[in-house]
């Protein structure tokens, strides 16, 4: 692998994954402590590298000059309130409660993001976000897509996605949160 001291974003290439065309290597996507809390390694091994699992989302693989360094997968999603919570909410509302606020919200969902351990300190996450935000705006001619959203750890949301890229995140008490940013 080429060791890089200065990162040149012009060397990044984003390709829609084509198993017949792209020969990908084993890449370590685990955290530096070896953990895989977002199942990124599992997804890469099963859905991209070995193609054992069929998934519907669009997968991108990322090259930095001649090296494969990462991937991400996307699809469109609709955000709803859990049915159980809707019932509780409607119990406290009169007839015709504010249902407009409860319409599904369309969003571009980034399902998985994986960056090679050796390339973690170059801000590649930012370029993936820029690419996805640009893609979402480009395909959003009718303005139906409101957000780009993805699940991440609370730690990454607090340390990186919010302070560096102004992605808001949900205030759940668990280890994982939803990070989101509007596109229109």
């Amino acid at each position: 692998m080429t060791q890089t001291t200065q990162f040149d974003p012009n060397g990044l290439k984003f390709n829609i994954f084509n198993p017949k065309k792209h020969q990908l290597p084993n890449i370590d996507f685990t955290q530096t402590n070896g953990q895989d809390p977002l199942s990124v390694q599992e997804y890469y091994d099963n859905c991209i590298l070995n193609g054992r699992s069929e998934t519907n989302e669009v997968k991108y693989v990322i090259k930095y000059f001649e090296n494969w360094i990462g991937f991400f997968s996307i699809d469109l999603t609709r955000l709803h309130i859990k049915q159980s919570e809707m019932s509780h909410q409607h119990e406290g509302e009169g007839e015709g409660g504010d249902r407009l606020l409860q319409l599904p919200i369309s969003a571009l969902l980034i399902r998985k993001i994986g960056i090679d351990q050796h390339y973690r300190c170059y801000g590649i996450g930012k370029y993936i976000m820029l690419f996805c935000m640009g893609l979402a705006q480009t395909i959003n001619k009718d303005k139906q897509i409101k957000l780009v959203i993805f699940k991440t750890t609370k730690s990454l949301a607090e340390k990186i996605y919010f302070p560096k890229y102004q992605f808001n995140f949900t205030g759940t008490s668990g280890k994982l949160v939803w990070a989101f940013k509007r596109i229109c």
Partner: protein
Amino acid sequence: MSKLFTLHSDIFLECAEYHQISEYLGGEINPEEQKFLTKAIAFYEKHKHDSDDSI
């Protein structure tokens, strides 16, 4: 129609999460966000692969 538009998943959020997102969307877009969005389009156009047009 783009392939992406044929894909739809559903995410069911806690009430508080949904309303946090909903309220955020109701707010005004600030200059910093607008700058990021503009930069994002330029970045996408520069780095997209030819086959992206078929998404």
